[in-house]
């Protein structure tokens, strides 16, 4: 037998889920004994509401998501030209007329950190960055450098810059790998 709050019955017929929600609220105010009786007689409907709380509706506002989205492609592709100009200004400022010495090891480390930090400041989301710097002495010897990658060519990219003065050369490469 249904409870005195017959209002709930008509609400359920008219509005479905929303009214079920309101019915739960009303039921909470009733006597617990009545609720138990109701449970026995309308086992199906009441049980559904009480045992599966996720049937309540979730309101999602525009721009939000109820779950974490998978972005297989970047919204903005990593900008090669901008990064190259940033690398150029960083390297030219740091190396300038520097001569090659044993301390160039620390200079190479410092430069790779600076390039990585400058690229990070551009704030391209979901991009992992790898900065590689090689500083060598200019002294009648050949150096050959090649790189190759297995990656997603649509999203991943690299930028390189070669600096040269009278005493040394510096090869700077920045790889940007997208996190899918």
């Amino acid at each position, binding site marked *: 037998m249904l409870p005195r709050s017959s209002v709930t019955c008509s609400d359920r017929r008219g509005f479905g889920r929303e009214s079920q929600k309101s019915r739960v609220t009303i039921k909470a105010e009733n006597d617990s004994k009545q609720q138990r009786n109701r449970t026995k007689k309308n086992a199906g409907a009441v049980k559904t509401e009480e045992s599966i709380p996720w049937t309540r509706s979730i309101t999602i506002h525009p721009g939000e998501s109820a779950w974490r989205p998978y972005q297989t492609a970047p919204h903005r592709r990593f900008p090669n030209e901008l990064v190259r100009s940033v690398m150029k200004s960083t390297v030219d400022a740091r190396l300038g007329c520097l001569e*090659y010495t*044993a301390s*160039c*090891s620390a*200079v*190479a*480390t410092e*430069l*790779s*950190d600076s*390039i*990585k930090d400058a*690229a*990070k400041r551009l704030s391209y989301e979901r991009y*992992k*960055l*790898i*900065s*590689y*710097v*090689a*500083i*060598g*002495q*200019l*002294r*009648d*010897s*050949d*150096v*050959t*450098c*090649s*790189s*190759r*990658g*297995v*990656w*997603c060519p649509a999203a*991943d990219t690299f930028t390189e810059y070669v600096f040269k003065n009278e005493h040394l050369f510096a090869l700077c*490469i920045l*790889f940007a*790998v997208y*996190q*899918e």
Partner: protein
Amino acid sequence: MEEYHSGDEVAFNPDEASNAVKECIEGVIGGVDYNQNKVNQWTASIVEHSLTQLVKQGKPFKYIVNCAVMQKSGAGLHTANSCYWDTTTDGSCTVRWENRTMYCVVSVFAVAVAL
């Protein structure tokens, strides 16, 4: 067909990568002297073979391999790298090799792919 380890996160194993790269270097320039005409071909071969061996391991990584070959003539070379990534899954290794006439430095960077 290689199988990928899906479900659990696999961290990069630098020792395994290092051994694979050393074998590739030995295979390409082991026992030969520096030759300016062939060095381009050598660096390309080292990089390509290394990548093939790494991909054959069947791990869910994107790889970048960088190889520098320098003639031994008294000049110095310093390399450095800096990375912004997930340290629990991504990693790198560098292999230094030399013979009588040249140096070879190969760097491998591995970036995890979420499956």
